[in-house]
C-alpha cells in the first residue's frame, strides 16, 4: 500500500467526522459560495451554452470568440440589451473550398416563422453570420430592438434549470411551432453544414411520465430533449456519442 493513500472514511460509521467535514467545507468556502450563488442561473445557462459550442467543435467547426467588449467576453444574461454590445461565438466550417460561418448567440430575439411581427428569445440561437438586425420601431418607447429574421435562424436551444414536468415539455413544442413551423410537419431543411436540431436542455432527472413524453415528442419531431444535464451531458456531448444527437433537418425514419 502506498504511503500517500488517504484513508477512506465511512459516512455511516463516522457520522460525526462526516458532519464536521461538511461544516468545515461550508465555513471555509462560505464567502466565495455566497458571492457566486447569486449568479447560479447565469452559470447554468453558460453550462448549456458551453455544450452547444462543444457540439460544433466536435462536428468539425473551428470556433472563435467575437465582439469582445473592452477585451472582455460580455455575456448577455437576458433578452434586454443591444446585441452588438455583447460577445458571441463564431463557428466556421469548410464546405468544399468555401468557408461558412455562423454565430452562436445568447438571448437574441428571433422572428416567428408564422408571423413576421412576432418575436421570441430562445436562450441560445445559431444564426447566419452578420445577420443581427436592429430597429427602433418594435417598442413604443423607440428603444433599440435587436433581432434576427427567421430565415437566418439555423437552430435554437432552450435551457431550463428544473426537474422536467409535462407542461415544460409541451411549452417547448409551442416555441418550436413559432420558430420552426416546418418541424411540425417534419419538413425541416437539412443543411450541408451540421447543426444541432432544436433542443430542450433540462437540468433535472426525468421520471417515468416525462421519459414517456420525451420518447413521444422525439418520435414526432426532429428535436432533442436532453435531461439530467449535469450528469449526462458530459456523456451526451462526448466525441463517441455526439452523433446520437439529432441534427437539424428531418427526423430519421425508423
Amino acid at each position, binding site marked *: 500500500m502506498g504511503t500517500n493513500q488517504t484513508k477512506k472514511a*465511512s*459516512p455511516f460509521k463516522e457520522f460525526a467526522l462526516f*458532519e464536521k467535514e461538511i461544516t468545515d467545507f461550508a465555513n471555509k468556502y462560505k464567502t466565495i459560495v455566497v458571492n457566486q450563488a447569486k449568479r447560479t442561473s447565469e*452559470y447554468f445557462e453558460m453550462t448549456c451554452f458551453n455544450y452547444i459550442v462543444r457540439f460544433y467543435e466536435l462536428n468539425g467547426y473551428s470556433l472563435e470568440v467575437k465582439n469582445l467588449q473592452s477585451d*472582455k467576453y460580455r455575456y448577455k*444574461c437576458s433578452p434586454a440589451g443591444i446585441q452588438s454590445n455583447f460577445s458571441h461565438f463564431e463557428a466556421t466550417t469548410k464546405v468544399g473550398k468555401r468557408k461558412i460561418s455562423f454565430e452562436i448567440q445568447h438571448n437574441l430575439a428571433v422572428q416567428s416563422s408564422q408571423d413576421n411581427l412576432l418575436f421570441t428569445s430562445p436562450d441560445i440561437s445559431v444564426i447566419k453570420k452578420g445577420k443581427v438586425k436592429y430597429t427602433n420601431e418594435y417598442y413604443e418607447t423607440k428603444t433599440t430592438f435587436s433581432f434576427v429574421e427567421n430565415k437566418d435562424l439555423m437552430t435554437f436551444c432552450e435551457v431550463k434549470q428544473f426537474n422536467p414536468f409535462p407542461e415544460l415539455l409541451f411549452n417547448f413544442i409551442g416555441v418550436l411551432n413559432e420558430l420552426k413551423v416546418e418541424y411540425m410537419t417534419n419538413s425541416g431543411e437539412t443543411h450541408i453544414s451540421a447543426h444541432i436540431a432544436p433542443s430542450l436542455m433540462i437540468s*433535472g432527472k426525468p*421520471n417515468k411520465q416525462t421519459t414517456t413524453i420525451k420518447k413521444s415528442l422525439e418520435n414526432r419531431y426532429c428535436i432533442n430533449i436532453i435531461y439530467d444535464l449535469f450528469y449526462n451531458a458530459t456523456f451526451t456531448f462526448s466525441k463517441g456519442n455526439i452523433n446520437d444527437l439529432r441534427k437539424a433537418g428531418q427526423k430519421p425514419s425508423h
Partner: protein
Amino acid sequence: MATETPIINILTYKLPFELSKQIYNEFQNRLKEANFLIETYKTYKPLKDNIKTVELFLSLSIFHRRVITNLDGAVKFYGTVIKNGQTDTVRIGNYNLTGEEKNKILAVVMNYNTLLEKFSIPLVVMEYYETREFLKKLITLKSDLENADYKEKGTKRNGNQSDEEGLPF
C-alpha cells in the same frame, strides 16, 4: 455547538434568499418523505439507524445540485472562452469572472470533490429524481462500504494467519 446547527442551515447560511428558500424547501419536503419511507417500508429499514446520516446526504445532495454543479459550469465556460478568444475575463452583468475569480470557484469545486472522495461517495449518489431512489442509492452505498470494510478486515486476518502459519512452532 456547531454540530447542533443542522447542516442544511450551515450550507444555506447567507445564500441569496430565493436560492436558500428553494434548497430549504426541497430539503424539508424530501426529509419528511425519507423519514416516512424509512419508518413505513421494509425496503428502507437498513437506514433506520442512520437517519442523521441520511439528513447529511440529503443536505449535501441538494446543495450539490443547486450550487456546486453551476459553479463547475462557470469554470468550464470560462475555459472555453479563454481557449477560443483573446481574453481572460468573462463579464456577467457588473461582475468580472477573471482568472483569479475562476480559481476561487475551482477551489470550491475541487475541495467539494475531495470531500466526497474522502468518504467514498460516488457522484451517482447525488443524482436522483425521487426520494425513494435516493434512499436506495444510500442503501447500496452503505452495503458497498460495509462489504469493502469486511473484505479489508478479512484480508488482514488472512494475512496474519499466513504469517502465523509460517512460524516454525
